[in-house]
């Protein structure tokens, strides 16, 4: 089966759902979510049966559509993320309901449950994008649907504010990205990445500056997506204001898509020898800034959602450390796990633990006064399962061994050490120590502190939520002991 069908199926699913939602007013809105989940799950199953095939002379689509292992991995990644986000969204519906004030119960909720399907399609296309046009369009599909989702709770000023900030900064980054893409095209005369690389490498040396100009503009645009400093300032505000499942989606999906594009683009630019040294400098600088900002600014944080936002920046930093290990270095050796696999594995782990944390937030959120960390005081007594789930999530985010997060960091820093990136290693060490502090702050609230008076009742858990929390926690621990299955998903990892 041709992989192109996957996205087509997802888009058709989304279109069908949104049409059905518009006309079938009597259907319970949750049904759409379940249908979407079932549909996406079906597509996920299908991904294992597609035949990437080999390039044939007539396959023009292959010029802009990658079918390699990374693409398949990130497609599945997008599908899993979307399914989990939809599950979370089901729990979150009461909150959304409160802030949209539709004409009757359930009105206006449908899009909240179906738009993520379009986002998912965008993410899947991004996974395969290897043409400037394709990159731009799929990226915008994701971004524009996120604009809507972030600002979805239109009676909630925080959600709207987040939406506006995301809108302005997103558009700004799009401007940079597009300008960079244009220059790339202009310099090489091609829009397909496969052709751009050789074309750029063939340019005379004096145009190195221009190539670099294009590279930096693209990097800036993607830096926004992956939340790299100094293009990360939107992250905490938007994460805090957005509906929680969407925050999770942003944090995982958007970042993952950003990284796969970044890796593909980097591949192209680093094939130009004159760009490599300065690209290294820029990448290392951005990485250091991201690590420092994400981890240090998280220290005084008191709001869990914002904390996870800073954490998202921090993890972007670690991922960038992995990305820099693609840079050749004097005296260094290649990373033991190839860069792509490291990033993929790290993102996979990040998916599990971040979604877990947000899932617990959503599940507990209906019974908590807010999402400040102190609101989680005594959660261990109110709901041991949720507290344990969040404990596992936080431990994994912090990078405690026998969680998938640790293996992620392990591979990342193995790469950095292999390349002799000592600055990154040193900054990373401080960053990890900071991470222990702010992640364990949540643990401290849940376990060390008594519940807030008047908030001592046990928290009921719905079946699906419990299943999600348990499954994610179990996966985090399982992959923390035996990561090979996850590595196998990414063919480049040997």
């Amino acid at each position, binding site marked *: 089966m041709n992989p192109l069908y996957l996205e087509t199926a997802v888009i058709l699913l989304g279109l069908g759902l949104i049409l059905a939602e518009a006309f079938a007013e009597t259907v319970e809105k949750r049904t759409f979510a379940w249908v979407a989940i079932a549909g996406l799950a079906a597509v996920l199953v299908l991904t294992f049966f597609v035949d990437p095939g080999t390039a044939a002379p007539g396959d023009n689509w292959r010029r802009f559509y990658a079918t390699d292992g990374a693409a398949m991995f990130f497609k599945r990644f997008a599908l899993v993320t979307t399914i989990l986000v939809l599950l979370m969204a089901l729990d979150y519906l009461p909150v959304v309901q409160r802030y949209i004030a539709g004409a009757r119960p359930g009105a206006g909720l449908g899009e909240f449950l179906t738009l993520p399907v379009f986002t998912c399609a965008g993410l899947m296309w991004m996974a395969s994008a290897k043409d400037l046009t394709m990159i731009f369009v799929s990226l915008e599909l994701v971004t524009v649907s996120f604009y809507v989702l972030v600002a979805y709770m239109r009676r909630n000023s925080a959600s709207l504010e987040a939406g506006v900030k995301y809108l302005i900064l997103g558009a700004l980054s799009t401007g940079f990205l597009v300008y960079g893409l244009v220059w790339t095209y202009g310099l090489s005369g091609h829009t397909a990445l496969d052709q751009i690389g050789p074309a750029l490498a063939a340019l005379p040396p004096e145009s190195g500056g221009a190539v670099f100009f294009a590279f930096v503009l693209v990097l800036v645009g993607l830096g926004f997506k992956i939340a790299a400093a100094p293009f990360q300032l939107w992250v905490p505000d938007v994460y805090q204001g957005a509906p929680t499942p969407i925050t999770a989606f942003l944090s995982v999906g958007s970042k993952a898509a950003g990284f796969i594009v970044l890796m593909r683009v980097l591949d192209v630019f680093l094939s130009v020898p004159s760009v490599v040294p300065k690209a290294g400098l820029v990448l290392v600088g951005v990485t250091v800034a991201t690590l420092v900002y994400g981890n240090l600014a998280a220290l005084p944080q008191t709001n869990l959602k914002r904390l996870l936002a800073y954490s998202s920046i921090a993890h972007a930093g670690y991922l960038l450390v992995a990305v820099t290990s693609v840079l050749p270095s004097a005296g260094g*050796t290649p990373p*033991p796990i190839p860069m792509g696999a490291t990033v993929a594995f790290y993102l996979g782990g990040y998916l599990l633990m971040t979604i877990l944390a947000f899932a617990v937030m959503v599940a507990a959120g209906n019974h908590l006064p807010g999402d400040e960390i102190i609101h989680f005081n005594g959660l261990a007594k109110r709901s041991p399962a949720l507290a344990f789930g969040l404990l596992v999530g936080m431990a994994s985010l912090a990078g*405690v*061994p026998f969680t998938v997060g640790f293996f992620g960091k*392990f591979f990342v820093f193995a790469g950095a*050490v292999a390349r002799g990136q000592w600055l990154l290693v040193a900054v990373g060490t401080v960053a990890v120590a900071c991470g222990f*502090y702010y992640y364990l702050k949540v*643990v401290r609230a849940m376990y060390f502190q008594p519940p807030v008076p008047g908030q001592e009742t046990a928290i009921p858990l719905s079946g699906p939520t419990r299943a999600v929390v348990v499954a994610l926690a179990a996966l985090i621990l399982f992959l923390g002991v035996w990561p090979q299955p996850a590595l196998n998903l990414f063919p480049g990892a040997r």
Partner: protein
Amino acid sequence: MALYLLILLPLLGAVLALLGVAPRKVSLLASLATLGLGLVLLLGYNPRLADPLSAPSAAQFQYVADLPVVPSIGLGLKVGVDGLGLMMVVLAGLVSLCAVQVAPAEREEDGAYFACLLFITAGCVGAFVSLDLFFFYAFHELALIPTFLLIGIWGHGERVAAAWKITIYLALGSFILLIGLLWLYLSFPAEVRTFDLLKLYQFAERGALEGAPQKEIFLVLLAGFGVLISLFPFHTWAPQGYAAAPTPAAMLHAGVLKKFGLFGLLRVAYPLLPEGAREATGILVVLLIGNLLWVGLAAIAQRSLDSLLGYSSVMHMGYAFLGLASLSPIGQSGTALLLFAHGLSVAALFAIMGEVRDRTGTTRLDELGGLAQRMPFLSVCFGFAMFASIGLPGFANFVSELLVFFGAFGVDGVHVGKRMAGDGLWIIFSPLQVGVIAGLWGVVISAVYMLRAYRRIFWGVLPDALREQTDPPLAARWPYALLIVGLMAIGFWPRLLLDVIKPGLGVQPTPAAQAGR
């Protein structure tokens, strides 16, 4: 396979305890099973198979089993033990057993409490039996979160601050260690790169690490392990953390977990990086003198038993480092034995300190006194543990320190005629020998503060406030006795352990007994 079972036993206990199945009984059983299995394996271990002169191999490490995890980078759950590892396993089982028993009665039903303790035990056991650099490290870190929880939830005094400090500090140290281990791993040529220690030993012996920046790697490892072992000046987490920790946690942490660092230096850093170790000796000696004298003096200045014991346990690490720094099989055997000896003695001291704290509500030296009149049993036990701690003969600590002194003093040889230090008639001692002299004076210092504590707490006039104190009931006394018996057994006949651990340290096994020399 037996070793996997060894790791699983405490884990299983932890899970059961977490589920609330008679937590203390389950934990006791799990610890006992760990200890028992460890002893059985120790008895079954044959040190004579090992060849001390060749690189450690499966002949030295017995019960070897392998479970590939990430084969592409040579990472797998490879386990195997030599005498040293088995000794540490037995130590972990023993201290765990006692720690579970001395847990206060009001925790009886607290599954999480016991689960945390058993997780620490499991982590220690796992680290001691791992023959894979990665899992060796990872198992140690398994204890991090349980420690945080134990101190933060059930601790004393400034528990939250202490929990933060110990956790962040150790996490930082561990991460530095991880970097060091990665560097070490990556310094091997790509074609022989593996986390399998046995293979690494063999590759290193064939010169795979020539040209690697051994000194730098060693120093990074030393810093990482050093933080975990509370090497001066990275030691300040220890007194505060141990003072705040619940008694069983302090026992396990100070008694077993902290030994991981030394174990790691013995297992990884010294055998694989001998050149680096040699070049770093000077730095290490300076730091360890800090442990011995600076921390020793700071211990004298303490006014409460909990922090005094904390400082004391830090100070004694100086001896362990001295033995390591000696680079001599004698000194390193001393360090190895000290792991065991210090583990038991510090566990006993912390146990008694906890008992005193629970019963009197204070550990301040000036609020206590004359307790021997009301608590003869505890005072005798504390006396024994104190004597062990200050290196009195008859206890394992003495033998360890003795070996350390001999090892460190002899290595640079004052052998007249062979190698003579310095010029002229003045005797010039090598840095190591200066370290030994500091260590000898440390023996005096440790006697100063321990005897003073004993005098203040158990001897002298009994304050009116303490008239109603009593000893723990008969049934609860065995942990103290067990720890002390262990110390004395090794103290009287150190060969019980030394004969087993020696081959791993490059020493010939002791020949059959020679009577009437």
